[in-house]
């Protein structure tokens, strides 16, 4: 470290934890927590969500530590604390490992070992299976790796009941199927960056046209998957309306991306904008879906129609 190295601020350590991903993860975990058929004490609910936040941050920090070489090459990520030299790599790794342990301990003492174990597994899945293995080796990296980001509602559910029933996995399926169209919309735009960094993202390996087709295919699958909570009775009328209207908009945007030249070598500014608008809407859609579940279950607005519920628990 030389005297010209800027001093690490608290903000840099927060950035290591990927705060925006953390917010979405806590939000979906909260949905699982309130949708589960029992009530938790305020203190234990808060602790469970805090543990999920810390676990997400821990996984983010380990990811930043391992990916510093890639991040340095890519325009979008070159200003992150590690590639910019504001935080030492060893500090990021110790922060990640230490916070992983703390988060699992908090989850386990506040709720139960089932939730603690699933939290530990999802940190491992993101930091090791996705970051260290899949990301650099297969174009299916974010498809499989998306599971890491999809676990939180199941963790939230398990925190309440100590079990992981089919209803909870229906919430898992939403984020899991949502991740490919969400992420590939962004990687179409950052196509060149990923190529330069040698990351085998789908547009790099299979080409932009193939990726645009897969975005459309996963979007259709997403429309099916978002209906599961309705059949299981987890999602009420508000959720159903949000899923249906948002799903149509999502599909319209995906069709626009499919018809565009986003990710091609001769991509124009409007193609770029088309892909970015799908990326932006995908975030809003996921937040609205899980927000609807929270509104229904935490604020007593869960109206449902027997005609919609075809399966009500084993």
């Amino acid at each position, binding site marked *: 470290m030389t*005297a010209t190295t800027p*001093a690490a*601020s*608290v903000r840099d350590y927060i950035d290591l934890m990927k705060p925006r991903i953390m917010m979405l993860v806590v939000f979906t975990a909260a949905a699982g927590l309130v949708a589960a058929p029992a009530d938790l*004490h305020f203190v234990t609910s808060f602790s469970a969500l*805090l543990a999920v936040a810390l676990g997400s941050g821990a996984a983010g920090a380990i990811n930043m530590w391992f990916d510093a070489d890639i991040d340095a090459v890519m325009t979008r990520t070159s200003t992150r604390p590690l590639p910019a030299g504001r935080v030492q790599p060893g500090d990021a790794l110790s922060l990640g490992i230490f916070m992983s342990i703390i988060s699992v301990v*908090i989850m386990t*003492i506040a709720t139960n070992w089932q939730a603690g174990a699933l939290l530990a597994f999802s940190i491992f899945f993101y930091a090791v299976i996705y970051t260290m293995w899949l990301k650099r080796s297969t174009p299916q990296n974010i498809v499989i790796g998306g599971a890491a980001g999809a676990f939180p509602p199941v963790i939230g559910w398990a925190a309440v009941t100590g079990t992981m029933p089919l209803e909870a996995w229906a919430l898992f399926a939403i984020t899991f199927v949502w991740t490919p169209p969400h992420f590939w919309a962004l990687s179409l735009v950052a196509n060149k960056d990923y190529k330069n960094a040698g990351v085998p993202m789908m547009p790099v390996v299979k080409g932009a046209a193939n990726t645009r087709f897969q975005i459309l295919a996963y979007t259709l699958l997403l429309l099916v998957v978002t209906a599961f909570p309705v059949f299981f009775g987890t999602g009420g009328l508000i959720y159903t309306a949000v899923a249906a209207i948002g799903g149509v908009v999502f599909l319209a945007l995906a069709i626009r991306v499919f018809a565009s030249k986003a990710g091609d070598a001769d991509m124009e500014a409007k193609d770029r904008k088309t892909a970015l608008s799908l990326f932006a809407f995908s975030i809003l859609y996921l937040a609205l879906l899980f927000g609807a579940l929270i509104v229904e279950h935490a604020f007593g607005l869960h109206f449902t129609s027997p005609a919609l519920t075809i399966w009500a628990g084993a």
Partner: protein
Amino acid sequence: MPPVDPEYSLKLTQEQVKARKKRNLVLALIIVAFMALVFTITVVRLQEGVARQAWTSATETSGWETAPGIQSGEGAPPEPSTESGDE
């Protein structure tokens, strides 16, 4: 004087010392918050356990009847009833 390891003889700038002080302060706050959190979780979970134990021993010794299929100590404790169970 023994030779000083260069790693430990860095001259920090005023700005770096200030940034380090701030980081340490935030760490101290986090540690205090963590202690408070573990304490609060412990109190809440102990209360749950104590309530559960009281309920278990009550159902075992008082002769209260639980609903069929429910073991002693399972299920929520009954609401305080206006009718006395001794009658």
